[in-house]
């Protein structure tokens, strides 16, 4: 394995019928990531269920209920490695009642694979998946037009989907979108190039995943360092050490940089950037480090260290797109805990501006109830200012979750506008 191999996280959204599980099974199988005992277990189950041959889709079932019902309920994570990259797949269910799981899987993804059945073209579910990928600002979208074997590998079916897709995707905020004609069942253009679609000049799916540029997926412009905890060893060799431990959210920090601590507003300079292995000159997202400053300033968890010439907005009134994740609907004017980076405050939903219908792309300003899977634009008021960026510019400092203090459950996920 090469030392500079990167990690790429991607999500797959789809339903039972569009071949999502077969595609994942195919990727794992053809990249030799399925072990013999796993294959044996799948063969046994296939036989018990009366399937012909090995049903690759069974590989992605996990929980007892999922195996019994033949569906994906929760996000399942799968792993495979090629000589070029390590991959993490967040395999999420595609049905509308599982929107929250799609949102969860999408939140950390570099890329989204959206599956379209070549026979049916773009359907409601396709638009929903594309919208969620856009809402969660997944940097790369790959539309796989699947089951090409069932339309005789004709270019026409592929072009129809591209036309249909571009009709609505112009309204979305998508930076990079690609289309690949595949047959997950037969293995065409998944790992190996298909010999049956010479009209397609692009790369197969795996090659696309292996080579797409992802170094720019993380914001390297705005220096943001939320403090997780303070390290005070008080041992012989580090008697006065006071290190601010955390993971760089975005941007680049160098020793000597002028920094401002928020919300206090005190300024100082970076004295050192420390790790167990060595002292560094520079730290960038997403590195976990410990930072010391030239001046003695009172800093604790929830504070954010930023570059002085580039600060986030500090505000108590925040507009965001909110996805409701819980069975219990939102209670009007109820207080919730809001978690933003390492900072937790209290918050209240002041106003529901509109609810967004993810099937019709229409806004509804009448309906003011937030139920599970609803996506709405809301205004939130917090008890103390949060140091925010817009989600579009910064997925870490632009995102929040709401926690219901009466149940301790995570009830909503928000993307700051």
């Amino acid at each position, binding site marked *: 394995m090469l030392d500079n191999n990167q990690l790429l996280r991607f999500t797959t959204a789809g339903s039972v019928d569009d071949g999502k599980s077969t595609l994942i099974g195919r990727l794992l199988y053809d990249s030799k990531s399925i072990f013999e005992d796993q294959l044996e277990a799948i063969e046994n189950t296939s036989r018990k269920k009366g399937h012909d041959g090995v049903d690759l889709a069974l590989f992605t079932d*996990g929980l*007892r209920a999922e195996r019994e019902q033949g569906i994906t309920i929760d*996000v399942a994570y799968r792993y495979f490695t090629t000589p070029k990259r390590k991959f993490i797949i967040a395999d999420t269910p595609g049905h509308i009642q599982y929107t929250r799981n799609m949102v969860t899987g999408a939140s950390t993804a570099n890329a989204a694979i959206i599956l379209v059945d070549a026979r049916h073209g773009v359907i409601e579910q396709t638009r929903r998946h594309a919208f969620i990928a856009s809402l969660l600002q997944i940097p790369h979208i790959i539309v796989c037009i699947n089951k090409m074997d069932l339309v005789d590998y004709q270019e026409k079916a592929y072009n129809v989907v591209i036309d249909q897709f571009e009709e609505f995707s112009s309204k979305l905020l998508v930076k990079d979108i690609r289309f690949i004609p595949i047959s997950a069942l037969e293995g065409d253009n998944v790992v190996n190039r298909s010999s049956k679609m010479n009209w397609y000049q692009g790369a197969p799916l795996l090659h696309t995943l292996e080579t797409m540029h992802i170094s720019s997926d993380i914001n390297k412009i705005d220096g943001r360092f939320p403090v997780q905890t303070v390290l005070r060893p008080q041992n012989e060799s*580090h008697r006065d050490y006071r290190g601010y431990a955390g993971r760089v959210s975005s941007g680049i920090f160098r020793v000597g940089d002028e920094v401002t601590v928020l919300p206090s507003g005190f300024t100082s300079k970076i004295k050192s950037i420390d*790790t167990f292995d060595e002292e560094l000159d520079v730290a960038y997202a997403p590195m976990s480090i410990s930072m010391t400053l030239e001046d003695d300033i009172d800093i604790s968890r929830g504070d954010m260290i930023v570059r002085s010439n580039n600060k986030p907005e500090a505000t108590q009134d925040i507009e965001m797109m909110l996805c409701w994740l819980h069975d219990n609907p939102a209670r009007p004017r109820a207080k919730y805990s809001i978690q933003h980076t390492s900072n937790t405050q209290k918050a209240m939903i002041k106003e529901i501006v509109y609810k967004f219908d993810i099937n019709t792309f229409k806004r509804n300003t009448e309906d003011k109830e937030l139920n599970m899977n609803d996506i709405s634009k809301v205004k939130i008021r917090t008890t103390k200012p949060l140091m925010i960026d817009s989600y579009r510019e910064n*997925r870490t400092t632009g995102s929040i979750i709401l926690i219901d203090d009466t149940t301790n459950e995570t009830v909503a996920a928000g993307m700051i506008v």
Partner: protein
Amino acid sequence: MSKYYLNYLDELESEAIFILREVWAQFQNPVILFSGGKDSIVITHLAKKAFYPARIPFALMHVDTGHNFPETIKFRDDLIKDLGVNLIVGSVQESIDDGRVAEEKGKNATRNALQITTLLDAIESNNVDCAIGGGRRDEEKARAKERFFSHRDDFGQWDPKNQRPELWNLFNGNHFEGEHFRAFPISNWTEMDVWNYIKREKIEIPSLYYAHERKVVWRSNSWIPYSEFLVLEDNEEIVTKKIRFRTLGDITITGGIESNADTLEKITQEVSAMRQTERGNRSDDKRSETAMEDRKRQGYF
């Protein structure tokens, strides 16, 4: 340094350090569940890095089945001394003596399932509100659904269909009195990642992982080490083989593989060519198709 991106191993390490620091910040009394296996050794190594130059702020908790490899216990005690951290031991033998659990009977009897009671008792009596484990999602299908911060109710039970969603880097560890969490910092690592990391970091691991000569018995498609706890069948015979272990559990259930890999270099090469999952040699997972899910629901590691 001019590339400004991390390679996959650095990114996994950074993620795990972030989780460990988050556990420390959000909980009152976390512990590391330490089995002496490579995954919990890697967790301990990551904790050392996460809090440097301070000491690891967690105790290590070991659930002792009494069916240990002697090598594991020595390794554990040396490590504790080296790190200067506390050790909490939960003893399955004591749970049996107290009548909390009953020993399984028969040829395939193990103390594997009995550990659940001992573990939950140790968590409760030590007021532990978060137990950090080395579980990985690639290990087993029920573990593929596991969260980084995984909630356990006041009976220590896991409800896989009703888990808190985890988005971005935001982890919700809020809980009521009597409940606890399990945290899994290396959720996203695979067996290969763990071995590559051990090699890169030159982490010391028990000698059992390296190929060595041992008295073994062929059972359920693997070499089970001979020990005083093993009840031999009529047709079984004790032989000496050069083997090594891919995972370490109880001496009664951990099967070895024949191997000549006696260096980390050779082990990583062997693992990358391996066509069986590492838990394929663990008879505890073979009891049924959902053996792991069933145990995890009750509070298993």
